[in-house]
């Protein structure tokens, strides 16, 4: 495992969640589950994040927020839909303002269902996400090697 898999920083966004899954995400940070063991930091800043944890379904109000956070995250990045609402829209899927799961706004890499999702399931989803993150980093490194001249460009520094 490279440093990318050993230091995944996450950003958590609550879309149209009932807060059940949010509480479980935060429970992962407590001494009981202590995800900092794996080097995970819950950062509030998309520019520092590698993992994007979304809870709740996407609606008219937050679709642009979800997209903006996703776009502000530098590659390699992985999106994890936490809870059944984030996966499919859940019980809210037929509401007039709901688009559906997170994949109706941005590409999702890992679907972790549950109502509410258990902390163990979140940790499992993150571990699956780390594998994808590693693949993306390898692809990015290979691409960066081809484009080594870009590093010397002052606009890139």
């Amino acid at each position: 495992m490279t440093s990318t898999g050993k230091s995944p920083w996450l950003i958590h966004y609550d879309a149209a969640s009932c807060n059940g899954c949010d509480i479980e995400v935060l429970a992962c940070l407590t001494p009981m589950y202590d995800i900092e063991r794996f080097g995970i930091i819950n950062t509030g800043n998309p520019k520092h994040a590698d993992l994007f944890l979304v809870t709740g379904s996407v609606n008219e109000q937050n679709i642009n927020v979800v997209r903006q956070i996703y776009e502000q995250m530098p590659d390699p990045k992985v999106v994890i839909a936490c809870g059944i609402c984030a996966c499919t829209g859940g019980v809210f899927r037929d509401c007039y303002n709901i688009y559906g799961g997170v994949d109706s706004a941005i590409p999702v890499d890992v679907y972790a269902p549950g109502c509410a999702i258990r902390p163990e399931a979140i940790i499992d989803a993150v571990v699956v996400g780390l594998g994808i993150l590693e693949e993306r980093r390898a692809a990015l490194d290979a691409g960066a090697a081809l484009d080594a001249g870009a590093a010397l460009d002052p606009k890139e520094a």
Partner: protein
Amino acid sequence: MSVASFIISLFGFTILAPLAGGLLAGIDRKVTARLQSRVGPPLLQPFYDVAKLWHKERWTVNNYQGFYVLMSLVFAIIAGVIFFAGGNFLLVVFILTLSTLLFVLAAYSTRSPFAEMGAEREIVQVMSYEPMVIIMSVTYYLAVGSFNTNAVLTLGRPIITYLPLVFIGLLFILTIKFRKSPFDLSYSHHAHQELVKGISTEMSGRTLALVEVTHWYENILFLGWVGIFFVWGSWLAVLLTVVALVVVYFLEIFIDNNFARVKWSAMLKWAWLVTIVCAVVNMASLNWSWLG
């Protein structure tokens, strides 16, 4: 400061300080986790973090930010090299301030509200700790008779015996310099705060990695400042200095974990109050001892 000591310090500090600083950050996170009854990340986690940031996509909001951050790192290294080579203490203080101000400029250059707010808080932090640092170098001169840091090696006893109150003042402002709670206003190591990530909000990838490494260099330099209070012309000094550094750093971690963040006005007020009391009383006592 001889040429030989400069060259030794140049290579020694530049290579060893980030290793020691990163390890120190790892120990810090481990001890913090244990204080919160958590297991905590691996000891080498800060190195993994920086290595990961180095491999992130290269983004920047403008052409200047990366340059400012790089220069901030370079000046932090220069300050450390001069300090450990036995050079002028006052020069170290000024160069380190330049390094901090370049970091502030890096945040200002982005024009992001969160980064600007963080930069403004950083300026207030500089205002809070700078008087104490200047007074420390002045009282150092009064006690030792030279601004050169290698002058302590000729002393018969460590300068903590001359400057006990100045040392307490330094401990107080070190909490600001180490970016520890209750004075971590501009940038905190802990997640989730009201300013997103304060001064480093707009920094990502390699720029953020450089910020972390700068912080490691600075931390080792600050521990050097603590250590110089316990050094004198004896081999016992090594033992005393190591014990003092361990105690001081654990104290900082303990304070970090037990205090909530204060408002900037409280930080400024308390820092200046401690500075004035410690400086005046200690300077007065130094003068009286000369008369006696």
